[in-house]
């Protein structure tokens, strides 16, 4: 019997891997249940969402523990469960899920941060009448994101990827009454779609080359030596190997999701969504999905690299990342919407991650991803709490002096901000960012990215200081008086703040636990890690840079509290540049002026063609036929009819006779049928024997 079941998977080495699919399945089922709920059943919805996600968190922790224990026994975990989904001809499409350090770490991060944000939203969305729908979307998102994480097949990953895109669309446009929100949702959807097209192309190409979309399948997967070497021999255009080209296509998709330079425009607008959404999707998890994707297909990207060297794909990733980092940081300096500032900082941090992946490998990029997920979620939720406290005010110039009114928010926010700036030694951001800088310093291709990233760090410290100075210091400039947010919102803040500090401990040069965990080496604590030549110097530089940024920011914005109307301090200094930055370097306008304008123009042309040319033609033809028809009618009425009518009468009388046959009796029909069969059979047999 066992054999007759075609899709029996090669059963996982451990029970936990066998039921890994439950991790995404549970929230998805929950969201399905919520979709059926009445809007009034807020409590049920909240319980369902949080309960299901905590189940996922529990399972993720079990999986993580399993991986860690394996690792402690010196076994690198990579357990997969694969099964055939479709089969056409000889090719069959397999799906499956994988448990390895990468997915385990990501699972825990996503479900943990997600859970905190769910709890936070309880408070934040309290007064929204579509509470239930909100949680339905949230859990659907959580489910599909976890699906992306565990996917062992590029196709499954792509499905979940699209689901994630859909939920992000739904959630950005959650307040669809606001035209801005609706527009932002559309923009996000379409922009990411541009990337996804390339991604899909990459998938198809990969399938056509390797015949499988599984990452790991006991040596037969597309991320394993056999397939990769095959890909390397395949030349593609522009002196790229097939591996490189596919890598670039996939990177285009990743760039779309995690807002890398050409496709970053949707992310800042996405802030129209509710703040928990911004925190969950557009800071912690979804935008990180792109980075995660690159980490997943890293073998492909890295394939064919000479020892210590790099590949075209990785170089592109690096440059795009580094450029995005600086570019977005620059724009962030001149924004006034508290969430927009964070959004641009997210874009720039994603740039850091990409650069880290490009230059330092999976461990560096992923470490920054994890730490960033925590402190950026913290920042966003802090911002949310501020907005909540200031009665939906988002303009930093209309806030101020909040540090006394909302102390808890202030402290946690400060911690997040310092972590983001990479304040030395204490904060996780420092270590992860230093990891990237360290990698950049050793990069063989060029030195420029290093300087760019350092400059980016300076800018980061600067704009964060500006923001904090605006929001929390000086005296209040808002109309209404602010108030501290409820416990249900501040508690997650505190927890996240703790991790924003503590996570640094697992990634210091002295004890690179995380890197060892991902790459499966042994690790122990020794101070010699710092003794590596130039490392101290590097740490010194970044420290100096950070303090420089903080100092600059403070000297310019600290203490004083300009009126909302009067121009910004920097604006007075250099209005032109400021204008550019405030207008986001005109990227949107550029797209508007080129692509969109072209479509608009083309649409008008088509419209004109329709109205004038084709329409005219049609009208002309129609007129022609109309005239012909008139002529006919004349002939008919005067010539044909007489004789024709006679003929008709004849026919109807004869037809009446014929209609007798149609007696309406079933059996008569049946009889005729049988007769026909008899005759037919007789003829057949007769002919056959003759």
């Amino acid at each position, binding site marked *: 019997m066992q054999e*007759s079941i075609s899709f029996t998977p090669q059963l996982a080495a451990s029970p936990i891997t066998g039921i890994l699919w439950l991790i995404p399945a549970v929230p998805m089922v929950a969201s399905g249940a919520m979709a059926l709920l009445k809007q009034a059943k807020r409590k049920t919805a909240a319980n369902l969402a949080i309960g299901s996600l905590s189940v996922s968190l529990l399972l993720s922790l079990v999986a993580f523990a399993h991986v860690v224990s394996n690792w402690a026994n010196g076994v690198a975990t990579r357990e997969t469960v694969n099964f055939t989904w479709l089969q056409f001809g000889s090719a069959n499409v397999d799906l499956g899920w994988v448990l390895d350090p990468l997915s385990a770490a990501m699972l825990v991060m996503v479900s943990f941060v997600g859970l905190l944000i769910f709890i936070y939203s309880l408070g934040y969305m309290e007064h929204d009448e579509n509470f239930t729908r909100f949680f339905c979307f949230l859990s659907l998102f959580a489910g599909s994101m976890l699906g992306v994480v565990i996917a062992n097949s590029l196709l499954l990953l792509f499905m979940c990827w699209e689901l994630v895109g859909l939920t992000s669309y739904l959630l950005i446009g959650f307040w669809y009454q606001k035209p801005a929100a609706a527009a932002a949702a559309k923009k996000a959807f379409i922009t990411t779609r541009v990337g996804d097209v390339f991604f899909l192309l990459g998938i198809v190409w990969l399938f056509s080359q390797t015949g499988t979309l599984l990452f790991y399948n006991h040596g037969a997967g597309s991320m394993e030596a056999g397939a990769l070497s095959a890909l390397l021999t395949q030349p593609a255009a522009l002196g790229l190997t097939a591996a490189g080209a596919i890598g670039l296509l996939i990177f285009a998709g990743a760039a779309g999701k995690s807002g890398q330079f050409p496709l970053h425009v949707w992310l800042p607008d996405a802030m129209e969504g509710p703040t928990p959404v911004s925190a969950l999707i557009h800071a912690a998890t979804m935008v990180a999905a792109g980075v995660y994707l690159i980490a997943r297909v890293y073998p492909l990207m890295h394939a064919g690299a000479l020892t210590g060297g790099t590949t075209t794909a990785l170089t592109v990733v690096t440059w795009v990342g580094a450029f995005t980092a600086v570019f977005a940081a620059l724009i962030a300096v001149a924004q006034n919407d508290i969430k927009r500032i964070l959004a641009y900082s997210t874009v720039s941090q994603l740039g850091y991650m990409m650069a880290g992946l490009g230059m330092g490998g999976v461990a560096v990029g992923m470490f920054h991803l994890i730490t960033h997920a925590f402190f950026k979620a913290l920042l966003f939720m802090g911002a949310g709490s501020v907005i909540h406290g200031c009665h939906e005010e988002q303009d930093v110039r209309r806030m101020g002096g909040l540090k006394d009114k909302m102390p808890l928010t202030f402290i946690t926010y400060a911690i997040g901000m310092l972590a983001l700036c990479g304040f030395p030694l204490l904060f996780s951001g420092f270590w992860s960012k230093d990891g990237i800088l360290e990698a950049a310093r050793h990069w063989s291709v060029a030195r420029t990215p290093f300087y760019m990233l350092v400059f980016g760090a300076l800018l980061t410290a600067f704009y964060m200081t500006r923001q904090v100075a605006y929001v929390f210091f000086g005296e209040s400039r808002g109309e209404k008086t602010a108030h501290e947010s409820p416990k249900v919102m501040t508690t997650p803040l505190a927890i996240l703040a703790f991790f924003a500090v503590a996570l640094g401990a697992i990634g210091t040069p002295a004890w690179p636990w995380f890197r060892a965990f991902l790459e499966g080496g042994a690790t122990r604590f020794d101070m010699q890690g710092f003794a590596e030549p130039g490392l101290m110097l590097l740490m010194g530089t970044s420290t100096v840079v950070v303090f420089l940024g903080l100092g600059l920011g403070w000297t310019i914005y600290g203490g004083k509290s300009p009126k909302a109307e009067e121009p910004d301090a920097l604006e007075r200094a250099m209005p032109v540049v400021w204008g550019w930055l405030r207008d986001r370097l005109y990227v949107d306008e550029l797209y508007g002026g080129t692509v969109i304008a072209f479509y608009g123009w083309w649409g008008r042309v088509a419209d004109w063609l329709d109205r004038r040319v084709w329409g005219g033609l049609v009208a002309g033809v129609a007129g022609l036929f109309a005239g012909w028809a008139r002529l006919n009618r004349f002939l008919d009425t005067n010539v044909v009819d007489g004789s024709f009518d006679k003929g008709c009468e004849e026919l109807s009388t004869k037809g009446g006779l014929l209609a007798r046959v149609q007696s309406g*009796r079933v*059996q*008569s029909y049946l*009889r005729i049928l*049988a*007769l026909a*069969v*008899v005759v037919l*059979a*007789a003829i057949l*047999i007769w002919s056959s*024997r003759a």
Partner: protein
Amino acid sequence: MSFVFYLLAALTVAGGLAAVLLKNTVHCALALTVAFAGLAFLYLNLDAQFAGFAQILVYIGAVAILVVFAILLTKGSETPKDGVFSKTWLAGLAVAAGVFAVLGWAVLQTAPMLPKATPAPAVTVGQIGNALVDRYVLPLEIVAVLLTVALIGAVIVALHEKEGTR
């Protein structure tokens, strides 16, 4: 041609004849079950165990009962005064006879070239099951859909159109 075969054939044909000839409709239905049973035994005689039992289960267990229900629901059990055969029964009979003539003629014509007795094939239910889910999986799915549709359709057709009930 064994004795058993003749016995079963006689049983089946007699059942069929009774089913179409008897006056009382319910008797017809019962005679039909006899014919079905005879057929089932014929299948067994042909070493088609599974088909035989399926025949009993489906036809005697379900179809015959269904017919009986229909008869009682349409009070067709009482025999009409003006005969049970339609006005055109003679023509119908003639046609049926013609059909039998042609078929029988064909069989007898081809009888010499038909294969002689072959050893009984050893077919287990397991093989049938595997064939169902592997070579014949598509027909299986389609039949499943068909049965569902038929079920729903029959229910809807037979439902009262009166609102209030269901």
